[in-house]
């Protein structure tokens, strides 16, 4: 990683730690939401940015994770077990869902996951005996670890930030391993990856299942953050929102989901003045951005930075020539 990249990440992390001390309770809620949604977006970025598959199911996985945590903790299961269960369940469902869809062509996963999101929404809404139907699940607990009660907004934010850090590090480590390199190969040139002996289908399926698992973890955190969940929170709009987050941030870039989630959480608040027109403006911005910068904001910054540094590099010989010519 370049020195500028490390510096940017350090500044970002510092900002995330200082921010809650300078914010009102609602601001802390917003940055907690940012941390939670970033985890789901990192998961989707694995599927979309690295394995090159469009998934419209990430919102549904967030929902499955949220309901799993809420229902298990209410049944008296200890928080850590319920939390792990949210992720594991989503991993299993992701595997089962991806298996048929990834047998066939690239755009099929998009449709199958679209269908899946609708089915999950219907199940959450209709199976009242389990999920409480449209009334949702109330009074979801926040965890206590060795006497550290995360009930307050600030404490819970740091818990979310902690989980986000662990997951980011794990994903970063995974992407540097031969495994992660295989993911990138899938996106860049699937046919060549196949010809080099990579089992492309298995790797794509793995990327999708791991991405789904992160969606589940994000959902578990989401449930305790809002403390009240209902089916409508996990309808198709949530999946679209997550998808746009990854794209706007920069799909296939490690920092993309962080930036995308930040914009998606903050933009509606900044655009309060535009009242109801927020979504129109957001949609229009995405449409304008796609042809100009399909690689997202992080991609734009990286390309800008690279072109700056290479220009400097090209100027060097010229200045050397000038120095020599001077005496």
């Amino acid at each position, binding site marked *: 990683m370049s020195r500028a990249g490390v510096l940017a990440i350090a500044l970002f992390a510092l900002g995330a730690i200082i921010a809650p001390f300078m914010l009102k309770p609602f601001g802390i809620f917003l940055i907690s939401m940012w941390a939670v949604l970033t985890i789901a977006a990192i998961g989707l970025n694995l599927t979309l940015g690295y394995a090159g598959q469009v998934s419209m199911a990430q919102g549904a996985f967030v929902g499955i994770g949220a309901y799993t945590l809420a229902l298990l903790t209410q049944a008296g299961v200890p928080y850590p077990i319920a939390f792990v269960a949210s992720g594991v369940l989503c991993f299993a469902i992701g595997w089962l869902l991806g298996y048929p869809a990834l047998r066939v062509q690239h755009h099929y996963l998009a449709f199958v996951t679209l269908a899946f999101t609708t089915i999950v929404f219907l199940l959450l809404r209709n199976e009242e005996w389990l999920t409480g139907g449209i009334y949702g699940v109330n009074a979801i607990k926040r965890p206590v670890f060795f006497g550290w009660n995360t009930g307050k907004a600030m404490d819970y934010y740091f818990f979310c930030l902690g989980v986000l850090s662990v997951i980011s590090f794990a994903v970063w480590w995974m992407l540097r391993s031969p495994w992660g390199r295989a993911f990138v190969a899938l996106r860049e040139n699937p046919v060549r990856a196949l010809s080099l002996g990579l089992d492309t289908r298995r790797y794509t399926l793995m990327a999708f299942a791991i991405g789904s698992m992160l969606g589940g973890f994000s959902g578990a955190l989401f449930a305790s953050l809002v403390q009240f969940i209902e089916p409508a929170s996990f309808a198709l709009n949530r999946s679209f929102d997550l*998808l746009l987050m990854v794209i706007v941030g920069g799909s296939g870039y490690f920092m993309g989901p962080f930036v995308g989630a930040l914009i998606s959480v903050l933009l509606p608040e900044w655009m309060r003045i535009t009242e109801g027109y927020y979504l129109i403006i957001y949609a229009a911005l995405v449409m304008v951005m796609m042809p100009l910068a399909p690689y997202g904001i992080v991609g734009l910054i990286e390309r800008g930075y690279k072109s700056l540094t290479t220009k400097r590099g090209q100027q060097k010989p010229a200045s050397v020539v000038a120095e020599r010519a001077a005496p």
Partner: protein
Amino acid sequence: MASFIQLLVSGLATGAIYALIAVGFTLLWQTSQTINFAQGEFVMLPAFFILIAMNHGAPFWLACLVGIATSVVVLGILFKFIIVDPMLKHGVLPLVISSIALALFLKEAVKDFYSSQAQPFPVLVSAGDFHIFGAVISSQSLVVLGVAIVTVVGLHLMLNKTRLGRMMQATAQNPTLATILGVPVRKMVLYTFLVNAVLVAIASILISPIYLAKFTNGETLGMAAFLAAIIGGFNQVRGAILGGIILGILDNLSAAYLSSQYRAAFPLIILIVVILVRPQGLLGRVEERTV
């Protein structure tokens, strides 16, 4: 039995509308690899063009013509030149994202600038019922069915019996070879966008009296188009027609006989079964993977 026939006919009518939407959807895919996630919103919008024309005092028939013409300009020409063309060089995925954003944009625009309430929409013929074998069949379903059949047959004749239609098919099947043979490929691709715009406008006129014109209509209709296209076969016009009709009938029968709560889930289960068993769709050809 009587109620079964009733459901079958109304299912056939809805299915015919789905088929129109799905045919346009597959045409765009075949000629320009455009997966139009805004197809449902494309059906929702022309109804509002027509309502706006009527608010300005136009009679219904004139408003329909204005609606179809506006739809050709906005959803055909502008859509192709502003959204699709700049994206094509970036591949399939960015265009998918763009069309999702477009769907959101159209939906919100109608909500904010027209109304968030469902709007009544004039019917093509005044209400009346026919009695066949004890079943009551509304004249509306028959008219919907009739118009849809005429449109599909007309499209079929155009694609298969005219020089223009054959050139469009050649473009869809092998653009490179079509270019060599002197087919103006770019013009043909544009024509498929225009055909799609006309199809969605007709579908809009047929479905809006039943569903009422509302900004959220596109969600279910777009889904129906994808499902019909995949069930029938993504690369065949007749596949899309078959898929649409199966979907419409299934939708009505399952709501009545199985579970109305899970009405929306049955087509999705069929979708997953089709993908598992026959991924190219019921009538589709297997597409080769390209490098």
